[in-house]
């Protein structure tokens, strides 16, 4: 019988995400072709590419939102789209996701949003949940927004609140979908530093989907570069910056020019 590793079994440097020859066909369109990649425990892996290159589709496969078969996708040793309900709950407690638009539930306050996973998956009393949520809000540098509605926050604050929700269960892996989207360069730089600090503090692995070159330079250990649905480069950031691949060079040059 195959044993499933718990969050404590993973050691720094372990390959906790593997994608093996993933093909993605959505509404009859081939979005991803034969994608292979891996990410290691404790590192920040950036999935890069221009708009329409398939970054978000790949992320959705990693999160189990889009299906994949067998060992095409393995996150923490499991295929996220083929989980039984009980494993699914455990799996999603081990990961956190920072969505592009924040994706906080508009009908709940910021505090309720951040406390939602704890409220649903733990038996902690309400006052303890509130204390944990307030601590997380402090960690992401947000003051007294516990009772505010998401619609009352600025774009930068919304991202921070969404980040607080993503880390509330102490995830092993934090997925970030275009964290810089809609932010000015100063706020983006602050958010990047915040993610870096949290990654060190909580010992998380970070998978970041982005096309922000400055963020990549600041944060990434490893890089996967997608072009027209294919992973045409995999390696360290230093290797990526020296790569002779024209599309990768153009990507970095275009980002620097911005």
């Amino acid at each position, binding site marked *: 019988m195959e044993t499933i590793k718990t969050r404590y079994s993973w050691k720094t440097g372990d390959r906790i995400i593997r994608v093996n020859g993933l093909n993605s066909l959505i509404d009859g369109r081939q979005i991803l072709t034969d994608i292979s990649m891996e990410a290691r425990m404790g590192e920040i892996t950036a999935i890069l590419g221009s708009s329409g290159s398939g970054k978000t589709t790949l992320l959705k496969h990693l*999160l*189990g*939102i889009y299906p994949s078969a067998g060992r095409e996708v393995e996150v923490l040793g499991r295929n996220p789209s083929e989980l039984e309900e009980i494993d699914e709950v455990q799996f999603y407690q081990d990961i956190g996701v920072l969505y592009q*638009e924040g994706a906080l539930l508009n009908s709940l306050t910021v505090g309720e949003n951040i406390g939602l996973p704890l409220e649903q998956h733990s038996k902690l009393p309400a006052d303890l949940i509130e204390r944990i949520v307030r601590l997380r809000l402090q960690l992401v540098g947000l003051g007294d927004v516990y009772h505010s509605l998401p619609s009352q926050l600025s774009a930068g604050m919304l991202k921070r609140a969404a980040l607080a929700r993503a880390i509330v269960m102490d995830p092993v892996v934090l*997925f970030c979908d275009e964290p810089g989207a809609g932010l000015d360069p100063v706020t983006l730089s602050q958010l990047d530093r915040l993610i870096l600090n949290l990654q060190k503090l909580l010992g998380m692995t970070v998978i970041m989907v982005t096309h922000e070159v400055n963020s990549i330079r600041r944060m990434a250990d490893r890089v996967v570069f997608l072009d027209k649905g294919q992973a045409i480069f995999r390696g360290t950031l230093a290797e990526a910056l020296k790569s002779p691949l024209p599309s990768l060079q153009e990507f970095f040059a275009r980002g620097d020019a911005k």
Partner: protein
Amino acid sequence: MGVKAAFIVGAMSFIIGLVLALQSAAQLRTLGANIYIVDLTVIAMMSEMGPLITAILVAGRTGSSIAAEIATMNVTSETDALKTMGLRPIRFVVVPKMHGGILTMPFLTILADVMGILGGLVIAATYLDISPLVFLNRMEQSLLLKDIVFGIVKSLVFIYLIVITGSYFGFRAEKGASAVGKVTTSAVVVSISLVILADSVMGLLFY
């Protein structure tokens, strides 16, 4: 859910009860069968018009809001966020709406019945010289428990169809703000059609 629809449901039902009785009054008077206005209004409202009017209004009001809310959640990745927090979007979003609907719909239907009958009573009193007391006495004789139960059962079937249709179209919304408008329109049209279809089928089955 649906509580805010009480005023419009009550007002519309009263008017429909009024019109229904008014249209029948002239015919019944020529036949000298004035008293049957009570049977006609009460049975029609309890077993047919009350549940149907309520369902159509709730489909337009609550069904559209369910579709729009879920579609917006879909467009802004909130449903994905629920899934990646280990929560089932259907259980988290749809089930509470269904529970709310099941709790409120019978009460709204009874309100519609009462207001419709009240409309009939007004016409009976003003056009057919049937006093409210006579109207109520006759109503006691003509109203059967099965008519009341049938109306409530229908209302539960209707709310089930409305919530499921609104949710189905909400979850189908693709990216983009225009998608919300499209699925909302589709949800209302389809749920009203399904309500009328279900009403016909149940009418045929339990006639």
